[in-house]
């Protein structure tokens, strides 16, 4: 079979276009949407922590968390409806149980460590969430959870280097990059 270089170029362009389209629409790498949702929740929630009284910030967190959970569940269902892996159905319940156990262990750690302030309390929860995301990446795909490492490092840097502006740091330098990263993956990857 012989084809000209221009035909070969056309074929490669078609492959590239299809690969990008698949990633955007149905691939499990569509995790970008979860990054954007989580980034938005953290951005709004931590800005509320920084600038609003504690009692009002709690309501903001409750509202954005509920909205974010609903959006994430809807996005997850949309992706899993079209793409399934050998682990999807088999381990669905175990994954749910894993997150419940992780939450219980997180509560245990908080009870033992007795965080001295809201910042410590927040960071412990965030680290547990990132551990959970990293574990999911090992189960499903490495491309799904690599972002947990730089985001975890940024959160720890904010806690130790800028304690007075920790919440603002979390909103702008952790929530913001998550949204940005999600958008970059969506448009450029």
């Amino acid at each position, binding site marked *: *079979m*012989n*084809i*000209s*270089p221009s035909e*070969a*170029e056309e*074929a*490669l362009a*078609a*492959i590239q276009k*299809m*690969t990008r*389209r*698949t*990633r955007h*629409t*149905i*691939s*499990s790498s569509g995790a970008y949407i979860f990054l954007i949702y989580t980034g938005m929740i953290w951005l709004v929630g931590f800005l509320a922590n920084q600038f609003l009284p504690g009692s009002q910030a709690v309501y903001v967190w409750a509202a954005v968390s509920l909205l974010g959970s609903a959006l994430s569940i809807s996005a997850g269902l949309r992706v899993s*409806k*079209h*793409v*399934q*892996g*050998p682990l999807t159905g088999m381990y669905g319940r175990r994954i749910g149980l894993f997150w419940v156990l992780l939450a219980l262990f997180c509560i245990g750690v908080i009870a033992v460590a007795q965080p001295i302030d809201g910042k410590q309390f927040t960071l412990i929860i965030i680290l547990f969430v990132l551990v959970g995301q990293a574990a999911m990446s090992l189960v*499903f*795909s490495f*491309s799904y959870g690599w972002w947990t490492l730089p985001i975890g490092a940024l959160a720890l840097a904010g806690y130790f280097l800028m304690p007075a502006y920790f919440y603002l740091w979390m909103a702008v330098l952790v929530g913001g990059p998550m949204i940005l990263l999600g958008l970059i993956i969506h448009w450029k990857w």
Partner: protein
Amino acid sequence: MAELNEIIHQSVRLRIMAALTTLDTDNEVDFTALRDLLEVTDGNLGAHLHKLEEAGYIAVTKTFVERKPRTFVSATSAGRRAFRAHVAALEEIIKK
């Protein structure tokens, strides 16, 4: 030197393989999502999938989801290898 694969080179089959090999190994996509992605008709997609399945490049699984029949498609290891070799052959032609 890699050689062009006549089965894969046909434009719809080329795009099918590109889409399926983009998914993680062992992941499968349902027929309707693949049809919408490729913007082809059911019959057209079915015919090309049959050709690829005969060559051992894809696996087709028919199952029931919530009591409705669903067809899922995935690239086999042989299919992934053949697609990689085909892409390498295309790249070699351009480099010449």
